[in-house]
């Protein structure tokens, strides 16, 4: 039984949700049937004096089961499903007996909506428990009455941020926000409080079912709310560029629902819910950020037959920004870290980065001060090579220079644990080449971190030609242990992320070379849904670095006798770096001019690249900026650099923010439709160059009706 029914001496019924074979309760058909039985029993027995809802797991209810929703293609099914759940919740809410939610742990999505349909909510005061309505993050909205009951409970203006951002909050915060009515110290206290409330309120009903109920802060037509509604869509689209229908539908559901009665509002909510369930953005988001991400975390890209492992001690070479960040992330996950630089001073400075982050985390109450102190104690700054002797993972984060990297590799390998792994944090240098300087190339691997390390969720693991499976598995386990998401790619110039990312910023430069006004390019860049437009992004990563990498590539390819075609955007970078001395944001001068807190596009751009009288449409520019990345990703797949669709999609969103609405670089092609994509790419190739020409792999897949699965 998913919900057990027990009645005490006072005829108070406790419904304990405890779905068999699961670590957490979820809302699905099985749950629905169990709830139906429970409600029917309550309705049939007028002797029951009250109802307590709780869970037999550590958490309450984690939300709706995504698998079922993901498969729905017919809005009628989604509508009926939402209505069915809500009709059960109405029956519970209006059963004529007091109903209390005893939240013994995390209650998310449908779990919280279930609690909102109770008359009183008590939560265990566990700071690790989360309460929230995170549906928006998967491109959906809370379809179990959440957009209706939450504003009626705490007011429209307090409810909207929780709904629109999907914020998950602790029980203590939920109490101050008004989501719950009381906190309990332990399970006994929780149930005792629930009983006491039921006994004290034998005639309880929902506050919105009381006569004369008014929404706190007023309904949707209250003047203060009307002012908010006027600007809310602008504030939203400033963030979303209008590319995400879920928050837009949440606004509508709350607005319209808070002009009418709860029952009508709930039906309105179901309509907006149904539209989202079948929307491409929800399918893209759920496919990538739920299923594919979960697969990755479960080790889909990890060699399966190698036992899980954990390194004893991490040595980090180079205490610059990257090294310091890796030290923080490792120490935070409980690893002992040796942070080595050429001088003790430099190493200390690297540790200071962690001290600053720890201080901030303590201030924001994300870390208690004892744990922060212990964390910092785990980081040992040093200039002594010998201190690395018992490290079984070395992460080299020195300057991107082959000879320097070779030198530190040899030096370190001479002292480190010989059974350990040597990893290079490089963003572009081929791993196989670096491994050739190693005495143990099979234990050599690439771990490409992103900056700033403490915030960026991705690590790109690069497997060199000689890297063995055990090394890969150990590296993979480490990345998961520091709570980052690993993608696994094979060795090639620029690997996957840097290579594809580069095509985006260079396309922006190419548009400039063709005479598109810089501002128009940047506006198109924003309209793609990328977090930053291409010229601003090129400034951030520095034009001189871009030029340096391109030059290195050109030289390497010449040395290898491979044909090299210069990207048309490179000519712009060349002039910017080598003639105009505008190397990027760090120097205060790039495509933009940087002042204290503002930046402006450099007016000189229009002189060096005069605007054409016949500019492209914004859609052409958007397509170029997105297609060029998707096409480069397909080339990575074709060349075996990327082996799994999940790695490509997750890597693109977590690595460089590829338009998340699309579900990632390969899902973008799926969602466009392969045939349509190939047709448009051919058209772009004809107009703008060979880089848009679809690889044979893609043509074949399109012809055979395949998708990137």
């Amino acid at each position, binding site marked *: 039984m998913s919900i057990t029914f027990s009645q005490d001496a006072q005829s108070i019924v406790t419904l304990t949700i405890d779905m068999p074979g699961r670590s957490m309760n979820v809302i699905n058909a099985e749950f629905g049937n169990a709830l139906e039985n429970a409600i029917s029993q309550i309705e049939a027995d007028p002797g029951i004096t009250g109802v307590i809802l709780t869970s037999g797991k550590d958490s309450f209810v984690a939300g709706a089961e995504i698998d079922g929703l993901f498969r729905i293609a017919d809005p009628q099914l989604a509508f009926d499903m939402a209505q069915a759940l809500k009709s059960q919740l109405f029956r519970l809410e209006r059963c004529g007996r007091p109903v209390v939610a005893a939240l013994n742990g995390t209650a998310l999505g449908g779990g919280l909506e279930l609690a909102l349909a109770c008359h009183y909510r008590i939560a265990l005061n566990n700071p690790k428990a989360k309460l929230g309505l995170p549906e928006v993050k998967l491109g959906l909205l809370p379809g179990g009455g959440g957009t209706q009951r939450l504003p009626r409970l705490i007011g429209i203006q307090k409810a909207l941020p929780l709904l629109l951002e999907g914020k998950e909050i602790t029980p203590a915060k939920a109490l101050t926000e008004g989501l719950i009515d009381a906190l309990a110290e332990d399970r006994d206290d929780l149930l005792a409080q629930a009983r006491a409330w039921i006994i004290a309120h034998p005639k309880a009903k929902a506050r919105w079912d009381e006569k004369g109920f008014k929404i706190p802060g007023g309904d*949707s037509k209250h003047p203060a709310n009307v002012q908010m*509604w006027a600007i809310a869509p*602008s504030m939203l689209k*400033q963030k979303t560029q209008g590319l995400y229908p879920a928050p837009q539908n949440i606004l*509508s559901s709350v607005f319209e629902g808070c002009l009418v009665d709860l029952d009508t509002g709930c039906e309105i909510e179901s309509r907006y819910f149904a539209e989202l369930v079948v929307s491409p953005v929800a399918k893209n988001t759920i496919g990538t950020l739920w299923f594919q991400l979960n697969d990755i975390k479960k080790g889909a890209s990890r060699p399966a037959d190698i036992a899980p492992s954990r390194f004893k001690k991490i040595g980090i070479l180079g205490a610059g920004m990257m090294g310091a960040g890796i030290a923080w992330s490792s120490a935070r996950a409980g690893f002992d870290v040796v942070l080595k630089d050429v001088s003790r001073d430099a190493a200390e400075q690297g540790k200071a980065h962690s001290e600053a982050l720890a201080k901030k985390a303590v201030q924001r109450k994300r870390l208690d001060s004892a744990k922060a102190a212990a964390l910092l104690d785990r980081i040992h700054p040093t200039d002594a090579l010998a201190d690395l002797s018992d490290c079984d993972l070395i992460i080299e984060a020195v300057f991107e220079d082959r000879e320097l990297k070779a030198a530190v590799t040899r030096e370190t390998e001479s002292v480190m644990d010989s059974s350990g792994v040597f990893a290079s944090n490089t963003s572009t240098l081929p791993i196989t080449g670096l491994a050739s300087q190693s005495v143990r190339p099979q234990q050599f691997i690439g771990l490409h971190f992103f900056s700033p390390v403490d915030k960026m969720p991705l690590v790109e693991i690069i497997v060199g030609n000689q890297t063995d499976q055990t090394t890969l598995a150990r590296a993979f386990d480490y990345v998961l242990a520091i709570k980052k998401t690993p993608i696994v790619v094979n060795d090639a110039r620029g690997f996957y992320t840097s290579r594809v990312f580069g095509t985006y910023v260079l396309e922006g430069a190419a548009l400039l070379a063709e005479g598109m006004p810089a501002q128009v390019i940047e506006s198109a860049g924003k309209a793609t849904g990328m977090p930053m437009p291409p010229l601003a992004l090129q400034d951030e990563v520095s034009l001189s670095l871009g030029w340096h990498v391109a030059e290195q590539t050109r030289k390497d390819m010449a040395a290898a006798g491979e044909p090299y075609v210069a990207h048309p955007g490179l000519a712009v970078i060349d002039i910017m770096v080598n003639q105009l001395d505008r190397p990027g944001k760090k120097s205060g001068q790039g495509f933009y001019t940087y002042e204290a807190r503002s930046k402006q596009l450099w007016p000189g751009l229009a002189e060096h690249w005069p605007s054409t009288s016949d500019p492209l449409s914004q859609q052409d520019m958007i397509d170029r900026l997105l297609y060029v990345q998707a096409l480069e990703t397909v080339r990575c797949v074709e060349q075996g650099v990327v082996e799994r669709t999940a790695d490509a999609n997750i890597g693109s969103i977590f690595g460089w923010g590829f338009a998340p609405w699309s579900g990632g670089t390969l899902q973008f092609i799926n969602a466009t439709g392969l045939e349509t994509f190939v047709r448009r790419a051919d058209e772009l190739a004809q107009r703008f160059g060979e880089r848009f020409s679809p690889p044979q792999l893609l043509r074949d897949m399109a012809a055979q009706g395949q998708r990137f699965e």
Partner: protein
Amino acid sequence: MSQAFIYDAVRTPRGKGKKGGSLHQVTPIHLLKNLFDALRERNALDTSQVDDVVLGCVTPVGEQGADIARTAVLYAGWDESVAGVTQNRFCASGLESVNLAAMKVMSGQEDLIVAGGVESMSRWPMGSDGGAMIMDPRVNAAMDFVPQGIGADLIATLEGFDRETVDRYAVRSQQLASLASQEGRFSRSLIPVRDVSGLTVLDHDEFIKPDSSLESLAGLKPSFKMMGDMGFNATALRKYPQVSQINHVHHAGNSSGIVDGSALMLIGSAEKGAELGLKPRARIRACAVTGAEPTIMLTAPAPATRKALARAGMSTRDIDLFEINEAFAAVVLRAVRELDLDMDKVNVNGGSIAMGHPLGATGAMILGTALDELERRDLNTAVATLCVGGGMGIATIIERV
């Protein structure tokens, strides 16, 4: 087709549209009653001869709701046979009433109409009627809604009007309005507002600030920067991808004032005028409405003017005076630039920046002002035009007879 003539034009003075403004104590229906009384007395009008009353009102709620036109007819004691309709074309409503009245007459279906509008902005503030384009997030998003001030600042940005340019225009409006008021140029139309005992409540446009100067305006903070930064700018910029940022130049001193007021015109056929012994003052030559891009919202006066001119077979050179509603300084400056007008013919007695813009009434007011000035200068033709919410524009051409 019949021709439509203007027989009379009356208006209230404009009172500051807030607490402490002289007309804040006066109900909107009472503003109208004053004018209905005046129109009847001045023309010795047998009100049973009037077919319909068309009134504009942009916030037709509360005291202004429930068809204030028919309400005013009955409250003013006009003949019960006189019908009344209230319509809302935002800031064009007052002029729309005139145009509708003209079309009723021209069509031959009706002979004598009262057209005008009313707005007590102090009692029923702008926005109190809500509206899907503003409050419904789905509609708001689909339309890329931004408040007019953002559109006005965007016009200034696109046209390159800097703060001094728009402020200079505002000072001109104040000086011209002040002079016109002092010289009594509005006196033919201006009907003082009197209370229930006949005591005068307000007999002049009280919003005018004759001492306004470039220096005094320079101290005013831009009105739309904060809301722009909160998100409206981004909405406007998505529509205008060539613009990197909006230059916020408009403020309380170079935008139209919020005021209370009302205006009426008596419009009829030649035959009906002759029958009642009324003397026609001007013929309505043509009128037009049009729509343009709704986010910038305020660019349609020029296209509407061109449309009306084309209908009349005229060009801007045939027009002696232009009244371009001073919703914002940049709106007038842009229309002048687009239509290539001689500034000496434009808003020669100031406008809404100096005297205020009682939304539902303004169109009828500025057409009346233009007619008075044509007579004073002994000129023949005038255009009144306004920018309108939702991106619309309106224009009316009159010619003295």
